[in-house]
């Protein structure tokens, strides 16, 4: 008893140590955001906090506009993604054919194509479709990017649902849409919502397409960051403030839904 208690202390200390080390860079960004530009270069923890950088950031860019675009795009693409992915995953999970496995893999492998290789084809497509700098264009591209993941994850979650339940629903008179909507989706909800969370995070942080395909009207927070970042790393305080503002919404959302994320992942793919 005695030793197990002291061991639990030890685990606590190690656990916290790791957490602090991993979180430290983010903590440092948060601290730097409240420093002046000159103080930002010094490693000191003691400084007089100032909102200067935030004032500057808000004066320079329309943060709310960028943030709203990010929200529209992340939620919109995730929703659209599921609308397309769920029927496909339904078919693959419950009526698999010999090609289902290879199709899934092929889909996942297209996801591995580097974006830099297909920028121009997509750009030209977008141009001719008039989708440049439109929220819908980005929603489309993220849907396309995330679709394989959504299908694959939904597929693994659906495989956990006994097919007899869907058959029961059919006998009860449920059509395909009813089966999916009333039975399958609610049953796989934990898995689907944690997948959704994953997709939202990925869309939120995607920086290549958003920067290349939008300019002002549809520009999300990654573009906002691009106006503060430079590979040369100038203006740390302002960059930190902007980063904090860009990361905060998604991080708060992630933290609030962490329980959901955990339980959802437990349900499906990783059980």
């Amino acid at each position, binding site marked *: 008893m005695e030793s197990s208690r002291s061991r639990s202390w030890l685990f606590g200390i190690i656990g916290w140590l790791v957490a602090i080390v991993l979180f430290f860079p983010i903590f440092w960004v948060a601290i730097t955001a409240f420093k002046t530009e000159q103080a930002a270069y010094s490693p000191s923890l003691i400084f007089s906090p100032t909102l200067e950088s935030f004032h500057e950031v808000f004066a320079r860019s329309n943060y709310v506009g960028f943030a709203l675009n990010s929200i529209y795009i992340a939620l919109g693409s995730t929703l659209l993604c599921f609308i397309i992915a769920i029927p496909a995953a339904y078919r693959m999970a419950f009526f698999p054919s010999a090609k289902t496995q290879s199709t899934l893999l092929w889909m996942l492998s297209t996801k591995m194509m580097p974006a830099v290789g297909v920028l121009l084809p997509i750009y030209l497509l977008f141009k001719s479709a008039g989708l440049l700098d439109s929220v819908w264009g980005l929603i489309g591209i993220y849907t396309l990017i995330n679709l394989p993941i959504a299908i694959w994850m939904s597929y693994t979650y659906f495989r956990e649902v006994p097919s*007899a339940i869907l058959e029961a*629903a*059919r*006998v*009860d*008179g449920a059509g395909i849409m009813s089966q999916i909507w009333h039975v399958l989706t*609610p049953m796989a909800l934990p898995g689907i919502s944690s997948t959704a969370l994953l997709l939202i995070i990925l869309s939120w942080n995607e920086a290549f397409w958003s920067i290349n395909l939008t300019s002002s009207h549809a520009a999300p927070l990654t573009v906002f960051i691009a106006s503060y970042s430079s590979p040369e790393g100038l203006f740390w305080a302002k960059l930190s403030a902007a980063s904090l503002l860009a990361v905060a919404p998604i991080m708060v959302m992630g933290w609030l839904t962490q329980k959901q994320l955990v339980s959802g992942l437990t349900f499906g793919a990783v059980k």
Partner: protein
Amino acid sequence: MSDGSVKIKNLVKTYANEHGHPAFTAVKGIDLEIKDGEFMVLVGPSGCGKTTTLRMIAGLESITSGTIEIGGKVVNDVEPKDRGIAMVFQNYALYPHMTVFENMAFGLKLAKKSKDDIRDAVTRAAKALDLDQLLHRKPQTLSGGQRQRVALGRAIVRNPKVFLFDEPLSNLDAKMRVQMRTEISRLHAVLRTTMIYVTHDQVEAMTMGDRICVMRAGVIMQVADPLTLYRQPQNVFVAGFIGSPPMNLLNGVVKRSGCGLEFVDETGAFIVPLPSRLEKFAEPFVGRKIIFGARPEHLSPTPTSDVGTQKPLTMTIELAEPLGSETILYLKSGARQIVARHIGEQHCQPGQTVALHLNMEKVHLFDAETGNVINA
């Protein structure tokens, strides 16, 4: 009451392999007629095609060829919901995210029934099944038996012409199984609706069915009421499948002995003269292989009839299972194993030798080649 008769004609189900070529035929052209209000049990070992047949009746599995009629109407291309059927699944298949009430109401809701109608129907079914206290619970908080009753209730509220059961009791413990068995039988007695019940358990089949359809490898072996099935098995498969402990089946040949015929088993240790009742059937099989069948209860220490008792068989007891009302004896005669059932209490020790009389009135002979009975 609408017509709940089911007529199956030359039904075939072939599954395709990975490349889309036909690979495996699960159901090989069966014909079966089920009368309105009848309780029909489909029974057979796993892989015999009974569940596939049931699923084709339900419309969950496409039909390769042949027809299924329900209520005199061919339903091959009718959606399950429009066939007038209800189904109870092996694992209950309850919707875990819905309450008991919602589970039972789901079908009616999809059928766009009015709220009042739904409530009435569900309440009535719930009362009948003793579920009225559980209506607001979720399935995972229920016991196995309760879940199965909910699944039953869900079927009842649909008010179907035909109930389909797919091994509904196999997940319950022994006690619950017996209880639910009587419950389903009671339900049938009350509703008088056609029920088609799939099971691999011959006890369930015998106790519940009006008629039993024994299947094997996609083919119907025999359809009959339980007692007929027991007394007059059409083939060696049915003989061996129905009855517990199973019928003793001995391979051997028919030989001429003096003026009559006798059965000699392949070890040569077991020789019985055939009674005159069987001689005319066995005559064409002289010198050919047959299978000799005798139920355990037809072996007894005392002669029960005057036929075929010339010589008691002497055997050694290997194992005795006293069940109280009866004792099951596992016996050995040379290399041959035989099971016998004794009514009443008896003290038998392993190693003990007993002399048993065979009731030759009740034995069966089967053609070893076709497996068909020859004494009929």
